[in-house]
C-alpha cells in the first residue's frame, strides 16, 4: 500500500514539475519571439504586471479600510468629548452666574459642522 502511495506521490511531483517546465518554455518562447522594447512589452510581461497591479490594489484596499474605520471612531470620540465638555461648561455657567460671551458665528458654524 505504502509503495503505491509513494508511487502516486512521485507521479504528482513529476506532473507538477512538467507543468512548471511547460510554463517556463512557453514564456521563454514568447519572450524570445517578442522581446520587450521601449514602447512594446511582451504578453508575458504584461500578464505579470497585470497581476502585480491587482495585488497592489488589494494591498492598498486592505490598508485603507482600517484607517477609514479608525478615523470615524476618533471623530465620534471627539464629538462626544466636545459635547460633554460644553454641557459641563454650561452647568458651571449656571452655578457661578458667570455670563459667557455667546458663540461667535465661526463657533456656531463649527458646532453645526461637528453635529
Amino acid at each position, binding site marked *: 500500500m505504502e509503495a503505491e502511495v509513494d508511487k502516486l506521490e512521485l507521479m*504528482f511531483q513529476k*506532473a*507538477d514539475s512538467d*507543468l*512548471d517546465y*511547460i*510554463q517556463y518554455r*512557453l*514564456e521563454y*518562447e*514568447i519572450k524570445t*519571439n*517578442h522581446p520587450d522594447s521601449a*514602447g*512594446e*512589452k*511582451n*504578453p*508575458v510581461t*504584461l*500578464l505579470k*504586471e*497585470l497581476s502585480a*497591479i491587482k495585488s*497592489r*490594489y488589494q494591498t*492598498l484596499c486592505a*490598508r*485603507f479600510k482600517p*484607517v*477609514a474605520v*479608525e*478615523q470615524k471612531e*476618533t*471623530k465620534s*470620540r*471627539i464629538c462626544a*468629548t*466636545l459635547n*460633554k*465638555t460644553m454641557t*459641563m*461648561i454650561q*452647568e*458651571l455657567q449656571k*452655578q457661578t452666574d458667570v455670563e459667557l460671551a455667546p458663540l461667535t458665528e465661526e463657533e456656531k458654524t463649527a458646532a453645526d459642522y461637528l453635529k
Partner: protein
Amino acid sequence: SSDLERLCSHVNEKISNIKKTLSLRNCGQEPTLKSMLHKIGDEIIVVNELLNKLELEIQYQEQTNSSLKELCESLEEDYKDVEHLK
C-alpha cells in the same frame, strides 16, 4: 479529501496559467493583437499612476488619523480640566 482538493486546485491553476500563456503565444505577432497589447500596456501605466495617487492619499489619511488622535487627547485633557474646575 481537503488535501486532495488543494492539490487538485494547485494543478488546475497551473494548467489554466499555461492555457492563458498559450493563448498569448501568437498575440505578439498579429498586428491587431499587437495594438491591443500596446493599449493594455498603456492602461497598466495609467492604473499604476492611479495606484500611486491612492497610496499618497492613504498616507495622508494615516497622518490625518494621528492628528485627529492628538486632537482627541487634548480635548479629553480639556474635559478633565473643566471637570476639575467643577
